[in-house]
């Protein structure tokens, strides 16, 4: 799979979403270097959309409409432009960065791709190949050498999906002070808790830190990377446990140093 022509042969499977995240990243990295491949992927992705348009429409259950209209009341929207350093910000400058050939073996690029919401960013990338190139380019610079990043960012995607689709999943939603939503989903069978924050961006130089609060014992449950869409925590909450999120200095704190922006009581 490391040979260039092998990656090129994945264009059709990529367009059909019939690749793993790792393979998708390889294709996206190869698109940086090959206009021919990029153009082919765009055409085949459009063809995949045409296949979707050929499916007979089915009216969804009526209740869904009302539920959605209720849900969006509490759901913040993303601003038109992403914060500096992200997709839109790097778009024009680094599209044609040929030096990447030197910097980045394909495996490194794999590590770089999910620098954020990989489902959504991959989707954006599929819609916007040039922006995709820029994202890959920027990410390569940030993470060149990051096999660990691959492990910690790609594997959780599967774990996250397992948690939020588990048949025994439980979910609690809380509002974030100043706007935003915190969604905590856990699954006893998966032994994992997923925390998803939307509409929350930590100030520059600060991080969001998760806390488990049991009685008067507060324990760090990890950092919430601003570029990520969710955090995964090992284990599941005990009844009455509270998950809190606070803004902390870069690197995190041993105990919260600011008032939590959200506290969610996790009752099973």
């Amino acid at each position: 799979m490391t040979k260039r022509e092998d990656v090129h042969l994945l264009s059709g499977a990529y367009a059909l979403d019939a690749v793993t995240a790792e393979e998708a990243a390889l294709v996206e990295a190869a698109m940086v270097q090959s206009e021919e491949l990029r153009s082919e992927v765009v055409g085949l992705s459009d063809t995949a959309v045409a296949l979707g348009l050929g499916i007979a429409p089915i009216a969804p259950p009526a209740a869904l409409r009302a539920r959605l209209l209720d849900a969006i009341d509490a759901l913040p929207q993303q601003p038109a432009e992403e914060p500096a350093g992200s997709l839109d910000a790097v778009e024009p400058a680094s599209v044609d960065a040929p030096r990447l050939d030197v910097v980045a073996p394909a495996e490194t690029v794999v590590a770089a791709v999910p620098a954020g919401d990989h489902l959504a960013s991959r989707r954006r990338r599929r819609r916007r190949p040039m922006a995709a190139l820029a994202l890959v380019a920027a990410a390569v610079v940030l993470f060149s050498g990051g096999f660990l990043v691959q492990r910690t960012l790609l594997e959780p995607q599967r774990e996250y999906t397992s948690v939020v689709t588990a048949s025994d999943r439980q979910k609690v939603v809380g509002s974030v002070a100043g706007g935003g939503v915190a969604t905590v989903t856990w699954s006893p069978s998966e032994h994992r808790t997923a925390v998803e924050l939307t509409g929350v961006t930590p100030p520059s130089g600060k991080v969001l830190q998760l806390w488990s609060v049991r009685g008067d014992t507060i324990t760090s449950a990890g950092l919430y990377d601003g570029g990520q869409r969710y955090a995964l925590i090992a284990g599941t909450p005990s009844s009455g446990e509270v998950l809190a999120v606070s803004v902390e200095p870069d690197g995190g704190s041993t105990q919260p140093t600011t008032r939590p922006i959200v506290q969610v009581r996790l009752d099973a």
Partner: protein
Amino acid sequence: MLVVMDPDVGDALSGMRDTPEHRLARIAEGDRRAFAELYDATSARLYGLIRRLLIDPAQAEEVTQEVYLEIWQTASRYKPERGSAVSWMLTMAHRRAVDRVRASQASRDRDSRIGIRDYDREYDQVAEHVEITMEGARVKRALEGLTELQRQAVELAYFGGLTHTEIAAQLHVPVGTIKTRIRDGMIRLRDAMGVTA
């Protein structure tokens, strides 16, 4: 630069000239009514696609909900010059549905091998449903231009939500063969449907 489909395909297939693109722009400004209108205009199409992949109505409804919430949240990121709104939404819907298929498939695999049978059933249903819409007729004609093996591979990928590696395993064919088969099939479909990049 993306999704310049044959115009009559785009219009006929989306079935709405008063455009989802404008509605998305309004949604990006927090317009709930535009969201409701967009939902009314597109939900059957998205739900139809998602249900084709997931079969199970309850799961399809959940995924449809996820997709529309994502549309609400990310409407500002939609760029009309990069393709039609419906393409953007269908791409998102397909991706989400595939994620769910794989998640369910993973849990099924832990228990049994029932998954394979489900996909076979799904495959048959796809062929049946594709026939009953006008745009479906066009897609069906294009699909008929493929070799039987190409069509099978493309359909297992797009409608079955399988990866090319899973398809190879299911059909007992080398991975490289499936990769090529899918690519050749997609190129032929692209040319038959007049899709240009």
